[in-house]
């Protein structure tokens, strides 16, 4: 049994354990330990992450219908698997303690949540380990249905959104299946190598058809525009840690498959050669622009939300655009940025969702207009959210800065000013909305009903502290992650980024995070010293103040939370006319009308009329042959 086999078996065992014991408290802890075990097994395969071993094979293989199914890990799979298992570990840890108990007491199906989480991790590992197109599709379907399961178990509303997801997901899966059938019809096999070898010889129309089908299929899972409508609400309604897990890694499975098929097998160079007629765009440019619009629109939608979970979920939609943008630019910098962003984003998205879940756990609400000032009661959560926000906004000293820097730099190097400006606009939106998040929850005036709120329990804080530590450390020493990223680049056929522990060294100004973070910490250190040693500061109550000639009282609400950016909204508000929703609704109505018409066919008075008509038509066609 190779290490990969052990990993898959352990993951399957986790599924079984959660099925049997998920509802008990020890079940959750046991599952968490098993995720840690999977992490250890992954670490044993770390040769993949350092380009020491190219591939780890699995001894599992099936022969069905003259096709051999086999599984293997390479650097790309290992990188994503690391994120998957890490996200699963943190979510399971979070939900094993007090949160799980409260969830079970309030009627939630904790066992089912644990089972769904374990099944998600298992199916994702199966997808990541796929060895040819058929096993990739099997893994893909398993992942889609596992996501559906974890989305659907929360409540009736969650099930409705999950159904919407399912419609999109199966449509995407069918597109992929169609593309696979086409590949098989050309090459006669599902193997990756056969596909790769056949690509140069394919006709442009075939290439476009394959590109379109694969891009649509993977794009639906990644929630690229215009298929992005399902993700935000579905992720927001998933029960607490489930949402963290999904937000962290679930839609990145689409990115994994895209990198695997379109970058490793087809090649960005090939895509750059495919010109769209009558435009200056190639297929690669098309993807880049879709990515950019995916960054901009959902991020500004996020800033309009006043539910914390919806805000974070809409962010998830937007940040995928950065990852895709980086990978599509395909230089060494850009693809490194895109891939690193997958890792970075997983860490702080998981952390942010977990913090918000902790806030909901303590206060009972996620409505941003009903929170405020919790920094006084939940300081550690505040600090963790702050770290996450700095990361999400892409500011030093957190790891988000590194990946965003890489992407911006690659856009400039690649001479793409429009894309660069668009990416920066996206970051502006991100900064605005995360500030809204932290302000409305933690800063400002503490509400009367929240004056007795306690800090989140340690079972919830520890996984978040772990994630925050990862965010900070990988921000300080980005070379740690860049090692893995460059192994992926090598495996996939992208140019490898030369880097060192602190970042990237380039002629015209590189990145050295060690210097930057040290300077920042030194600056903060000096500032803190001055602040505390100066002795001029005095602790006062927040309401020990006056405004407009009146003293402030606790009952009056001074917290500014609603309509947070009125000026900006005045500018961009009219643009948000829910056009995509309108398109979606239109499509569904179209299907409904067709369906009605078909039912009308079957409900007629004279069924024999059709028979006669078809006989006449068929016979006249026969005669004309």
């Amino acid at each position, binding site marked *: 049994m190779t290490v990969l086999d052990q990993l898959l078996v352990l993951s399957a065992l986790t599924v079984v354990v959660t099925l049997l014991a998920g509802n008990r408290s020890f079940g959750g802890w046991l599952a968490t330990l098993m995720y840690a075990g999977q992490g250890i097994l992954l670490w044993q395969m770390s040769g993949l992450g350092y380009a020491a071993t190219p591939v780890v094979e699995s001894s599992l293989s*099936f*022969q*069905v*219908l003259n096709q051999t199914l086999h599984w293997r890990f390479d650097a790309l799979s290992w990188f994503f698997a690391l994120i998957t298992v890490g996200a699963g570990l943190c979510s399971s840890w979070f939900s094993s303690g007090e949160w799980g108990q409260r969830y079970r007491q309030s009627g939630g199906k904790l066992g089912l949540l644990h089972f769904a989480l374990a099944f998600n991790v298992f199916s994702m590992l199966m997808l990541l380990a796929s060895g040819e197109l*058929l096993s990739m*599709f*099997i893994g893909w*379907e*398993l992942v889609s*249905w596992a996501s559906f399961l974890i989305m*659907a178990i929360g*409540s*009736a509303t969650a*099930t409705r959104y*999950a*159904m919407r997801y*399912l*419609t999109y997901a*199966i*449509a995407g899966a*069918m*597109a992929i*299946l*169609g593309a696979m*059938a*086409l590949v*098989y*019809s050309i090459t006669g096999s599902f193997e990756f190598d056969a596909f790769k070898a056949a690509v140069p010889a394919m006709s442009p129309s075939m290439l476009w058809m394959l590109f379109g089908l694969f891009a649509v299929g993977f794009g639906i899972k990644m929630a690229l525009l215009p298929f992005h409508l399902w993700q935000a609400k579905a992720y927001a309604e998933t029960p607490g840690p489930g949402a963290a897990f999904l937000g962290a890694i679930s839609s990145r499975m689409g990115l994994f498959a895209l990198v695997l098929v379109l970058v490793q097998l087809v090649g960005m160079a090939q895509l750059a050669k495919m010109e769209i007629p009558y435009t200056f765009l190639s297929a690669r440019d098309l993807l880049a622009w879709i990515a950019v619009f995916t960054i901009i629109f959902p991020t500004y939608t996020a800033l309009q939300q006043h539910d914390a979970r919806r805000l974070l979920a809409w962010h998830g939609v937007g940040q995928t655009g950065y990852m895709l943008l980086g990978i599509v630019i395909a230089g060494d910098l850009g693809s490194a940025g895109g891939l690193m962003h997958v890792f970075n984003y997983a860490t702080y998205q998981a952390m942010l969702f977990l913090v918000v879940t902790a806030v909901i756990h303590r206060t009972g609400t996620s409505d941003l207009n009903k929170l405020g000032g919790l920094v006084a009661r939940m300081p550690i959560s505040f600090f963790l959210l702050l770290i996450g926000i700095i990361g999400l906004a892409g500011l030093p000293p957190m790891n988000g800065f590194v990946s965003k820097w890489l992407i911006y730099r690659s856009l400039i190097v690649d001479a793409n000013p429009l894309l660069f400006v668009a990416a920066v606009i996206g970051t502006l939106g991100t900064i605005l909305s995360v500030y809204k998040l932290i302000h409305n929850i933690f800063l400002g005036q503490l509400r009367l009903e929240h004056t007795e709120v306690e800090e989140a329990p340690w079972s919830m804080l520890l996984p978040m502290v772990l994630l925050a530590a990862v965010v900070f450390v990988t921000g300080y020493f980005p070379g740690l992650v860049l090692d893995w990223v460059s192994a992926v680049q090598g495996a996939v056929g992208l140019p490898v980024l030369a880097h060192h522990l602190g970042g990237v060294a380039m002629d015209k100004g590189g990145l050295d995070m060690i210097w930057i973070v040290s300077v920042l910490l030194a600056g903060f250190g000096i500032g803190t010293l001055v602040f505390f040693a100066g002795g001029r500061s005095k602790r006062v109550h927040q309401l020990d103040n006056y405004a407009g000639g009146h003293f402030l009282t606790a009952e009056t609400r001074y917290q500014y939370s609603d309509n947070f950016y009125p000026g900006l909204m005045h500018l961009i508000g009219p643009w948000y006319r829910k056009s995509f929703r309108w398109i979606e609704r239109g499509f569904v109505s179209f*299907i*409904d009308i*067709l*369906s*009605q*018409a*078909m*039912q009308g*066919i*079957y*409900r*007629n008075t004279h*069924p*024999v009329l*059709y*028979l*006669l*008509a*078809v*006989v006449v038509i*068929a*016979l006249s*066609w*026969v*005669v004309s*042959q």
Partner: protein
Amino acid sequence: MNNLLLLIALPLITAFLLPILDRVSTMLARLAGPVVLFITSAIGFWLWMQLGGQTVAIQLGGFLPPLGITFYVDQLSLLFAVAINVGTLLLWPDDGEDRLRRSILSLILAASGSGLALSGDLFNIYVFYELVAVVSYGLVASKSIPGAYAATIRYLIISAFGAVLVLTGIALVYQATGTLNLAQLAQLAPDKLNNLQGLAAFVLMLIGFGVKAELFPVNTWVPEVYATAPTRVSGLLAGVVSKLALIVIVRLLVLVFHQPEAQTVMLVLGILGVVTGELAAWRARDFNRMLAYSSIGQLGIMFIAFAIPGQAGVFAGLAVALHHLIVKPALFLLAERWGGSLEKLAGAARTSPLGAALFIVLALSLIGVPPFPGFWAKLLVLVHLGEQAQSLYYLGGLVILAGAALEANYLFRVASSFYYPDNKQELPPAHRRRDITIASVLTAGLVASVFVLSPLAERLDGIATQASDVPRYIQTVNPAALPEAQP
């Protein structure tokens, strides 16, 4: 191998003896039917084991071909003969006021279905087909509600028209070749039937036999009949009888009508069937009709699959057909208690958790989610469609994929409503033990087949190869060279 005729004779005799038995002892009459079907199924299984990989021709009455009627026994026909017997046994009508009549009709259905599967003579096939049709009229009307009568008479009208078309087709074939023995037709077809007359005959027979096989557009009877007939009868019709009619068409296609235009007609009608069936199912608001439309869609997929030339088409179509043969009756068994408005099914998981779980498994297989057998069947069809490299076949593939996406939506809309009821609503009734047991057995068989997928696929491949082997057919039926028939 002559014991094979017991598959036809025994149920027929029992059917006619049942009224007399009923006068003597009700218990005896109640048991006689299932016992006889059990015996015939056992005989069928035993003959299957004995058959191995050979093919046998039984000349009825000792009349040598082409003058007599031949029964051709290969793995495909034996499989479906056993299937109709086992299916009728599993979906045996339960006790009601017209139990006797339904038992008689079910026995005759088993007998004539076996004959239909095994027969090797075109007019004999027509006779058995009409027998199956008449019996199905009786079975569909057996729920004595006015809607059933109306649905039956409408079904009868279409079916009678279809029978006339088949007869006309047979007339054309006989005129061209002077024989109705399938083996001799296979011999003569390249010369005599590879023309306009042959194609016209095929189209007529396709549409005629297609009534039972739920071919578009002669499948307008399907939603009404499935909604008003007893659910077991619907399960039998949708599951087994439609496949029998389909196999007849496939035999004709493989043996006699080799023109590519014949396959084109099947392909076009199959595509239309999938489109209309799946789209109509999207808005279905009661369980029975949702299953009916879904059935139309799945049979459309089978027609598309069988329209692929060569052994590949037979293999792919057979896989889909056998998969549907197990799934649809199981779903109809669940519909026994769940028939009715879909909105009323909310919360069914509370009263019938096993039923809800079975529905989910069956739905996943129907949509084509790996690792269930439905996925492998659809993959086969899609792969072979892709190999054809003609735009019409690509359209067929596209339509199948779109249909699967629609199926996922409407089936899981129902499934998720099982688990999240609205607040104040009466929960749907639980299933009867008998229904749920048989449904569980069928679903368990489906799941078990996942583990033996490779050997199963090889077996099916062998069956398909044997079925598409035309020289073997001719050789088995008449080893000596045939004299030319007198036109």
